[in-house]
Structures are given as C-alpha cells and as structure tokens.
C-alpha cells in the first residue's frame, strides 16, 4: 500500500510529468530504500547549516522542473569541502532555469549500479539491474526480471552480469553487501508493484553499492 505522502508526491509531480529529485528520494525512502541524507534548501543558510551538521564533503544539485538531465546543464556539484565552495555552488545553481532550490546531500561512494523499472506491455512491471553510471547504455551489462522478485532472484541477477566479479570482491576489494542489495531491491520491487501504472519508468542511476550500503545516488521517476 502506498502511503498518503507518496500519493501526495506523485500528484504534485503530475504537473511536470516527472518527480523532482528531492521528492523522488523522499518517496524512495518512504518505500524503505536507502537514500543519502539530504536537504531541499531554498536558502543558502539552510544548506550550510545542514552541511555543517552532517559534515563535508557534500554534493549540491539543482532542483528545477525544467532540468531533467542535471549533469548536462551543469546542475551537479560534487566534492564540496567547505562553506565557501558550498556558497559558490549554491549561487551558481540558483542561476539555472526553473530554479526551485538546491538539493544538498551527503557524499556517498561505491560501485555505480543501475536499478530501474518500467511497465512492459506484455509482462507488466519489470526490474532492470546492472552496471550503472553514465556509461550504462554503452556497457549494456544489465539484467531484467519480472516484478515482484524474490530474494533468490537477486543472486541470479548478480551472477548474470558480466561484471559480477567486480561486485564480489575483485582484486582484494571487499565485496558489496548482498544483504543491503537484497533489502533495497526487495523494497524497490514492492514499491513498483504498488505503483503499477502510476509511473511509466524509474531510473535509479547510480545506486552506490559498497560493503556497508546500497544508496540511491540519483533518481528519475517518469509519470504517465
């Protein structure tokens, strides 16, 4: 069952046809997924107060209904180490078209994965999982399952990736947390089953998978 807050987010996003990133992250967090700690700041002092509370470095992203592809518009600033850099970033982002505040969030790291969903005409809600990041459509190392998925599907999804060894502790690295991955994918699976035709597609890309967490770095929820 979708909570009232999720329904509210969806209904106020209809206007733009997609869900603004802070709303998307709030929605995913309500659905039980791990998202970075963030604030949707209208003013610089809110942003600074948040950054000093959680500690630098932080990431700042523009929030604008007119900017779906933030990176292409210069709407993302990573590795902000101090108050001055944050102020500079805030100032620059506020000049972007349709500006509605800045999303400031903790820096997270890990292997960049993609978790996505779409409503397939023949099979209904399906989940895509694989190697993410900006090269996602170049590497095309992804796998698909019909939702809902079971915990055992997560292992088979991992194994079917060409790059699965990268996630299982390649060259001395610690493996990513299978437990966290399974937990987040299960939450995602229930969410998209509940959403049904209420969304057209979701791209969570990247999702940072590390030995301790699987955190949604960016989220794009497209509405019908």
């Amino acid at each position, binding site marked *: 069952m979708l909570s009232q807050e999720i329904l509210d987010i969806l209904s106020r996003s209809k206007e733009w046809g997609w869900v603004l990133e802070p709303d998307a992250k709030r929605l995913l967090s309500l659905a039980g997924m791990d998202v970075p700690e963030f604030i949707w700041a209208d003013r610089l002092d809110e942003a600074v107060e948040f950054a000093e509370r959680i500690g630098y470095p932080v990431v700042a992203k523009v929030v604008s209904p007119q900017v779906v592809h933030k990176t292409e518009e210069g709407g993302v600033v990573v590795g902000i180490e101090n108050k001055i850099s944050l102020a500079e970033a805030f100032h620059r982002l506020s000049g972007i078209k349709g500006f509605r505040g800045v999303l400031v969030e903790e820096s997270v790291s890990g292997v960049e994965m*993609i978790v*996505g*969903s*779409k409503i*397939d*005409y*023949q*099979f*209904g809600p*399906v989940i*895509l999982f*694989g190697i993410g990041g900006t090269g*996602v*459509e170049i590497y*095309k190392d*992804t*796998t*698909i*399952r*019909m939702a809902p998925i079971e915990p055992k*599907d997560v292992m*088979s999804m991992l194994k079917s990736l060409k790059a699965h060894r990268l996630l299982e502790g390649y060259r001395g690295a610690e493996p990513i947390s299978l437990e966290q991955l399974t937990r987040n994918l299960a939450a995602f699976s229930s969410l998209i089953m509940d959403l049904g035709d209420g969304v*057209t*597609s*979701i*791209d969570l*890309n990247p999702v940072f998978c590390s030995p301790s967490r699987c955190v949604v770095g960016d989220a*794009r929820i*497209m509405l019908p």
Partner: protein
Amino acid sequence: MNYQKLFEPKTLAVIGVSMSNDSHPANVVFNKNRLRYPVKTFAVNPKGGSFHRSEIFVRVSDIPEKIDLAVIAVRADLVPGVLTECIEAGAGGAVVISGGFAESGRKDLQDRMAAIAREADFPFVGPNCLGIYSPDHVDTFFLPSERMVYPRVGNIALVSQSGGVLVDQMINLADEGVGVSVAVSVGNKALIDEVALLGYLSADPKTEVIAFYLEGFQKNGGRDFVSAARQCGKPIIALKSGRSPEGGRAVSSHTASLAGDYEVFSEVLSQYGVVEARSQFELVSFCESLSCYEKPIQGKIGIITGSGGHGALAVDLCAAHDLSVPRISEKVQVEIREGLSGGARPIAALGNPMDLTGSAVDDDFVAAAECLSRTDEVDCILLLVLPYSPGTTSDLGARLSRVYLREGKPMVAYVPHVDKYRMLIEGFELNRIPVSPAIEGAVLMADAMRRCQPC
C-alpha cells in the same frame, strides 16, 4: 471450460463444405477425417445437397447425433451466427478456420464471437487458424493428407500462433523421429490462447513437453503465461519471432532503452524456467532432448569422440552455450584406459574431450561411456559418433543406449544423418537417446537440460 471434446471428439461437423469447390478447406477437412480418423464426420452447408455420396446437412442441429467438435469454415460475417447454432445444438467446441477477423480490421466480429462463446462456456480455437491435430483422433488442418508430414505419436505438444510455422515444426520433428502428442495452431486466439492451452496441456497425460511458437502477447499476457508456466511442472520451450528492436522509437529512460520488448521477453522466460529457442533448429533440438530427459543438469559435459577435430568443435560449442567440459581426473582416465582395446589404448587422449581415435571399436565407446556414467565429474555425456570409422558398427547406438538405461546418466549424440547410418541412429533414438545431425544440435540438447531448471 472443458477442452476434452476439442482434442478427442467422437463426432465432427464440418461446416461450410462446398458442392462446387472440391478443394475448399472444409472439403479437405471433411475428407481427411472421414477417411483416416475414427471420428464420425458430418458435412454441413445451408444449401444442403450431397458431397462424395454423403448427405450435407442444412444445419448442425439437423445432424442425428450430438456433435463434439464443429469445424467452421464459412465467411467471417456468418461465423457468429454459426457459432450460436453450434452452441444451441449442444456441440462440445469448435475450431474456426475462417479468416477475415482482427487480422484484417474486423476485431469487432472477433470480439462478438468471443463474447458469445464465453457467455455459453463454449470453447473454440481460432479464428484464422489451422486448428487441431490430435493423433489418432482428429485433424482439422485444411491441408490435404498427402501433402502433410506427420511426426510419430509422442509426448510433445506443439502450440503455434502461425499455422505455417506449426506445419514446418511437424516436418522438422518428423525428420528427427520426435513424436507429438498434439499440435494446435491458435491463430487470432480470440478465446483459447497460449495460457489456456498451457492449463489444459499441463494436465494432459499424453503430453510431457510443451513447445510454443509465439509472436506476441496481449497486454499483461506474458505475465499470465509465465505464471501458468511456473505452475505447469512440465518442460516448456518457446520460440519467439519479432526479436529485432523496433527502430527509431524514442525512449524516456535508460531502463526503457535497455529493457526493450524482446530483452524483457527473453529474460523473464528464463526467470520462470521456460527454455527459449532462438531458431527452429534450436526448437527441434530442445524438443528432442527434453522429450527424453526431464531432470535438469548443471552442465558438466563429458565428450566421447572418435575424432579430435569433432571433439575440439564440440568444446568450442559447449563454451558458447555456458556448458563446462571439465578435465577428467587421472584416476578415472586410468580406469577408462584399462578398459580400452589394444588399438585405442596407447593412443587415446582421455582428458576430455576423450578422443578414442580412428582405431576405436564399439567396445571402446561403451567402456568410456560406462566409466563416465559412474563418475560425478560430468553430468551429461556427449557422444560424437562417426559411422564411417572402420571400427564402428551399426550396433553402437543400441549398445550405448543400454549403458544409459543401466546407469541413468543422460547422453546426447551426434551422428551424420544419411540413410546408410539409419540403423545406428535408430539404435539410439528408439531407446530414447536423442541424436542430432549436427554437433551443435547435440550441444543444444545438453544446453536444454541445463536451462530447463524448475523454478
């Protein structure tokens, strides 16, 4: 809905038999069933008259016996009326051969038929189809018998959206000596679709493997299909056309771009344990293999060959199909070598592939197959048999089959298919060891067992 009378009718009405056109589909269906099947066959045409000295009944209800199956081959716009007559006459079901429905813009007519049938709980196949071939019971294909190639009676059910592909598949299976329990062309599937047939066939004691040729599903039809497949408990194989991506379609997300229609189809089928065939050749190989073996394997292949080149080709093909060809332990190699004849013993290479060489005789193949059957280093044996090799006799197929029957480890074989090697091939096939005319086919047979994992 009860499909029994569709597949095993005792009485058949063929509606639309023509007095003026002897090659009319209805006439073909009437003739072949009257002459070759135990079903009691009656001709129907509103004009009445007689055909081949049989009375043509004006209406189905005029036939003095209750009709189990009606084959309807009349103009599309007349079909809903005829369907109603069949229902009123108490018929058990129908096959609607006629075209001219959704495929040519008359979806309304098709929907009307489906509504009439649903209301009356009356099963029908079609429209726009060949219908049902149920060996020893009925054949509604409007193809003259002398043009058809019928596979022997067996345990594979074929279901196809396309009548042509279905007939092709029957020819291919017949060619490989693989038997069919029933073949259904579903056409526009206005009422009975793949999912409905899956339900019937999973309970059909004559069917052990179900093979589909699919073009596409309705909205969410794929979801229903895989859910039914999971319940089915029998191996299911699917060949899909329309696999190339739709060109130029704008997509709004990475997911939509990476999860195109075919990618989703392919991965979801595999998620649910359905074995996807990517060509007609794969379909035949998979059918042949799964009609013999039900248990899945991990895919550790032991290759026994009389020629190094064949062994090397088979290893490459195994690798391409995610099958492993593990090196056989020294212990097992020593054991096998001790069992070999004087000609092969000093020169055979037993690491895997096991090249028994051109000096091998039947006994060598049997000795190697026995040892491999008893070790868990491999879970399937791939036999590359070259009947032109001087030490190989036409008894080898039957002898190796006996090893399987004794030991129970699945074997698949490659033997070149020419008439003079027929007895060797039958020695395998009649003992339910699948044989392919190509090395790749034999590898595909092993691949089918690996991929057919129950969920």
